[in-house]
């Protein structure tokens, strides 16, 4: 009896031992990390309740940050702002007359479009607006969250391509920002196009438009730039200033989304391969509102 009680005490002491607790915690967290890596892992849904609780605080902090930033900018730039205001007033008058002219051109374009039955570029996509809740930090913690989740129609992946979670994310001017990485009930995480985990098929917008791959690069990420590689055909001439848009290949990103412009040409590791550096159109430092493109099912 005494021996049995002693054995039980020893066992209890073992499980209460601090080293055991820490080692067990490490093993458990490593397991959680590895299980959360596959696409569509249900572990990402755990953050749903946390997102629900934190969302009002995040919106409050984002709003306060915007106001503070605005006050600081106004204080710093007050003189420049006055001068810019005068300039803008003059420009406004010019633009008003241009708008009147363009309104007429727009009407004629609509007539042409109807005549040729042109399809709107993104007619098959539902556009959902979202606020940015958090910023990316540093390595590994380099995705940002938006306030759209599975409750808003963002579906989690079940492993099939058709149900892929990776919806394109664009800004107000339809310029590419990135893609959805994971989603919980009330929020989603977005991988930006400068992230090394992002790649998209693109097309150079000129007559002999080559097909390229635009991807993030770990060395270019601090400079907010992307890498352009896999140029097809290999002898296509890329030039500084070339605009690149999505090609539509792969089925995830619709064709025609503006990505950015080439700012630098460089040689690839293989002499036959061209590479280039692209500056994205989207201003990733000033994002507040983004738009998620959700494909509508074909009728």
């Amino acid at each position, binding site marked *: 009896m005494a021996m049995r009680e002693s054995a039980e005490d020893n066992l209890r002491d073992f499980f209460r031992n601090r080293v055991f607790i820490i080692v067990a915690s490490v093993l458990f967290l490593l397991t959680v990390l590895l299980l959360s890596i596959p696409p569509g892992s249900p572990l990402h849904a755990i953050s749903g309740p*946390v997102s629900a609780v934190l969302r009002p605080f995040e919106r409050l902090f984002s709003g306060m940050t915007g106001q503070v930033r605005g006050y600081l900018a106004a204080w710093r730039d007050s003189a420049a702002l006055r001068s810019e205001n005068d300039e803008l007033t003059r420009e406004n008058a010019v633009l008003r007359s241009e708008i009147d002219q363009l309104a007429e051109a727009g009407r004629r374009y609509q007539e042409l479009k109807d005549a040729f039955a042109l399809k709107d570029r993104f007619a098959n996509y539902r556009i959902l607006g979202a606020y940015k809740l958090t910023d990316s930090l540093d390595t590994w913690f380099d995705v940002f969250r938006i306030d759209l989740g599975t409750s808003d129609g963002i579906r989690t992946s079940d492993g099939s391509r058709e149900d892929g979670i990776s919806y394109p994310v664009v800004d107000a001017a339809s310029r590419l920002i990135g893609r959805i990485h994971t989603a919980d009930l009330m929020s989603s995480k977005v991988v930006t196009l400068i992230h090394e985990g992002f790649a998209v098929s693109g097309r150079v917008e000129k007559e002999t438009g080559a097909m390229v791959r635009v991807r993030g690069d770990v060395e270019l990420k601090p400079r907010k730039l992307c890498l352009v590689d896999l140029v097809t055909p290999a002898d296509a001439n890329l030039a500084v200033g070339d605009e690149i848009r999505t090609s539509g290949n792969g089925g995830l990103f619709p064709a025609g989304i503006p990505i950015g412009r080439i700012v630098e040409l460089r040689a690839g590791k293989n002499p036959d391969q061209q590479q280039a550096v692209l500056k994205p159109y989207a201003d990733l430092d000033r994002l507040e509102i983004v738009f998620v493109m959700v494909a509508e099912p074909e009728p």
Partner: protein
Amino acid sequence: MNARSRIRMIVVYSLSLLLLTLLQTATGDLLSWRGVRPDLTLVLAVISGYLFGVRDGYWVGLTAGAMRDFLTGRNIGLGMLLLMLSGVGAGYLLQGLLRRRPIYAPLAVLAATVPVQLAAAVAAYALPLLPGIPVSLGASLHPVFQRLPRQLLLNAAAAVMLTTAFSWFGPYSRQRRLELAEHEKSGERLWA
């Protein structure tokens, strides 16, 4: 510990976690210096472990890491692991080395910053989001070394502020700290 002390501990840690996590993740570039922000959640985990012991460092690190994973992590688990180990390491190793003196708290934070930054970079190299696109370890580590000096400075400044704040509005009252210091001069007892 009586109920009032326990409530104080929970409230202070909860508010600290919420405030510092949101300051780090939801304020844009307001607190950044040349693209680098202070790692406030790491500072909190290390200060908790260094000043108040392994158990505090463990739980604060685990919770702060979970918030970080949920809010900005690619996946779940690494933030919890790194910050939990930082808090525990600060409690185990640095308390003995630095005698738990508040003036050395920034050193404790600096000592934790380097391995955490390197570990995150190695994890990003070992577990890439796009396995078909190889990334070299050197390329993964290079940006970390580039921003490390600024990160260390900002973390040290944050450590000074947090230590000062905890000396006035910490999770344990000064009276309680003095009472316990009378009985225990080392080990798992509170900074006085």
